């Protein structure tokens, strides 16, 4: 408290002092003075008719303005001398002293308020500057810089250790080695609580620092980061911890924002690649079935995911019988799609370029090519390769573990054509052999993948072969496209909105009747 404080009060409360002086003047005093440091700070009335020498000889009542041993100034009443007036003057002095103390307290509170506002403004500015920043290391460095400055610590540290992001910052210098920092971080992570180490804590701070505060940063409910301060000249007090926690909250939001953005980018990239892969795979499948005399053909594939492991293919060259294939790589998704491309290409090349290629030779040679790769990745493929000679209406086929393959004669019940060989790519190599089947007008051959037979309904029941056989008998008189649509519709209805578990592919071959157009 100082005479400056007293002068300010006199200025700010001038009306009140004027009133106080008026009561003294009304009581007979000639003047009321406030003195400090040996001179008059204020006098009422301000314009004295009496000369200074006269005033100096008047009886004077005095009351000190004192706080403890500190003499700030003095109240003086000129022209009065009675004890009652003295007591009253002392009471006035006590009130004025208390007023000065309150002004000091108010100043202290104002200073704290200003500091709090400054911190809030800084936090707001920090939030604004980092909210749209997607460069996480830069944002964290800015945050560390502002935090150290706001809380007046020598160093600010930040550690981020999520499943796919690791960052460590110590601004502006490194005071602790990485091992010590990560040990502290792990403690915060496991306990999900703060660490405060100084000369008063049970555990001393690490060598190199005299105090340390580390708070957890929660992201999506887990502690994957921490924010800390080292070496604050005064010790860490509650407002420091509160501000640090507030900044940690802001940092958590910022980190989560960036991680989300990175994940979105990665997902978008993957989605784009998947779309490209889908397009590429679609182009591997024949766009249109070949025109074969006396044979109606339809084929369609519906993968469970964007890309799948099913394939079908036609190889039809002038002067050669129609060769066709349907295959199913075990599994789904990109890995199955890659193997699908390999298998389809191997079979196509054998069927196209081998002289006198038959299903048996195509399958054996393709298996020779593919066995090594399939075995290495632990995959296998069920494949049906057929060959139709239109002039003889003769079908030759070999079936490497593939089902369902349904043959529905025009006049008789539908039946399953069983596999006569194991799936391609299985450890034991197998010598595949041809089977033959004479076809008649109206006969239907459906080569499908097990996405149909193993489709499940909401009760977990599978569609099964019996349903497929019964279904085929009801639709076999329709066109190949209609037969295929009937299969898809029946299985979709059976699944009743349940997601498709596996790829669904089928090829329908129908020997046309002589009166068919």
């Amino acid at each position: 408290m100082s005479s400056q404080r007293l002068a300010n009060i006199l200025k700010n409360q001038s009306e009140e002092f004027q009133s106080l002086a008026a009561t003294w003047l009304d009581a007979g005093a000639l003047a009321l003075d406030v003195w400090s440091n040996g001179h008059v700070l204020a006098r009422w009335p301000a314009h004295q008719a009496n000369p200074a020498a006269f005033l100096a000889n008047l009886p004077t009542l005095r009351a000190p303005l004192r706080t403890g041993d500190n003499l700030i100034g003095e109240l003086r009443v000129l022209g009065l001398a009675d004890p009652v007036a003295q007591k009253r003057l002392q009471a006035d002095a006590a009130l004025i002293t208390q007023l000065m103390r309150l002004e000091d307290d108010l100043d202290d509170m104002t200073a704290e308020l200003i500091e709090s506002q400054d911190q809030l403004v800084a936090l707001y500015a920090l939030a604004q500057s980092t909210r749209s920043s997607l460069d996480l290391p830069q944002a964290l460095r800015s945050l560390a810089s502002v935090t150290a400055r706001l809380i007046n610590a020598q160093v600010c540290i930040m550690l981020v250790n999520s499943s796919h992001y690791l960052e460590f910052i110590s601004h502006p210098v490194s005071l602790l080695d990485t091992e010590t920092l990560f040990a502290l971080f792990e403690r915060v992570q496991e306990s999900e609580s703060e660490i405060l180490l100084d000369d008063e804590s049970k555990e001393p701070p690490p060598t190199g620092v005299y105090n340390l505060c580390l708070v957890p940063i929660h992201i999506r409910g887990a502690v994957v980061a921490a924010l800390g301060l080292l070496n604050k000249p005064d010790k860490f007090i509650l407002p420091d911890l509160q501000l640090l926690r507030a900044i940690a909250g802001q940092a958590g939001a910022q980190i989560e924002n960036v991680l989300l953005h990175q994940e979105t980018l990665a997902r978008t990239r993957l989605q784009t690649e998947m779309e490209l892969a889908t397009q590429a795979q679609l182009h591997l499948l024949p766009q249109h079935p070949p025109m074969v005399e006396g044979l109606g053909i339809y084929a369609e594939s519906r993968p469970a995911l964007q890309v799948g492991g099913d394939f079908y293919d036609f190889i039809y060259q002038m002067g050669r019988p129609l060769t066709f294939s349907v295959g199913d790589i075990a599994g789904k998704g990109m890995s199955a799609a890659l193997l699908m491309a390999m298998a389809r290409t191997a079979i196509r090349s054998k069927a196209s370029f081998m002289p006198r290629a038959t299903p048996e030779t195509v399958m054996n040679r393709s298996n020779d090519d593919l066995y090594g790769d399939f075995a290495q990745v632990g995959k296998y493929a069920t494949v049906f390769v057929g060959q139709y000679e239109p002039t003889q209406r003769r079908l030759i086929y070999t079936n490497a573990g593939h089902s369902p393959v349904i043959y529905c004669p025009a006049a008789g019940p539908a039946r399953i054509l069983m596999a006569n060989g194991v799936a391609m790519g299985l450890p034991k190599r197998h010598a595949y052999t041809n089977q033959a089947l004479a076809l008649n007008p109206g006969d239907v051959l459906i080569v499908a993948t097990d996405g149909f037979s193993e489709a499940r309904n909401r009760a977990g029941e599978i569609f099964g072969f019996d349903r497929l056989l019964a279904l085929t008998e009801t639709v076999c008189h329709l066109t190949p496209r209609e037969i295929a649509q009937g299969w898809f519709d029946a299985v979709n209805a059976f699944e009743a909105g349940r997601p498709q578990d596996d790829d669904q592919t089928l090829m329908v071959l129908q020997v046309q009747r002589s009166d068919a157009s």
Partner: protein
Amino acid sequence: MATILVADDHRVYQRMSSYTLRKHGHTVLVASNGHEVWDILEQQIVDLLLVSLQTTETTETTERAETAGMDALRLVQALRADDRYQHLPIILLTTRPQDYEQIRAQSEPVNVCLVKPISSRELVDTAHRLLGGRIVGGPV
């Protein structure tokens, strides 16, 4: 240092601005309304005027502003119309950015318009920037 007049009808902000500027060695005079601003300017030389704008759209604040006789924009325009205060550096503090745009549209009667909240550092730096080489009263 300079004599700065803080005109703010919000006592807490008045005190905060005064404290900040006094802490940097300036003499600070305070006014709570436009009449007091004129009274002080008539009696003392002021180097810088800091005015806090009151919103005029909420009923409570309008009543308070009218009761206090305080409309910062009209006050500033009146000061600028007076030859004695044409060049008085003026900082306007407002809580609404749109007020700033309105003021800018009216031939910029103030030197600087700051949107609250501002830090004490920004207040002091702005004041010192306007005071420059210790401007005293009249023309810059």
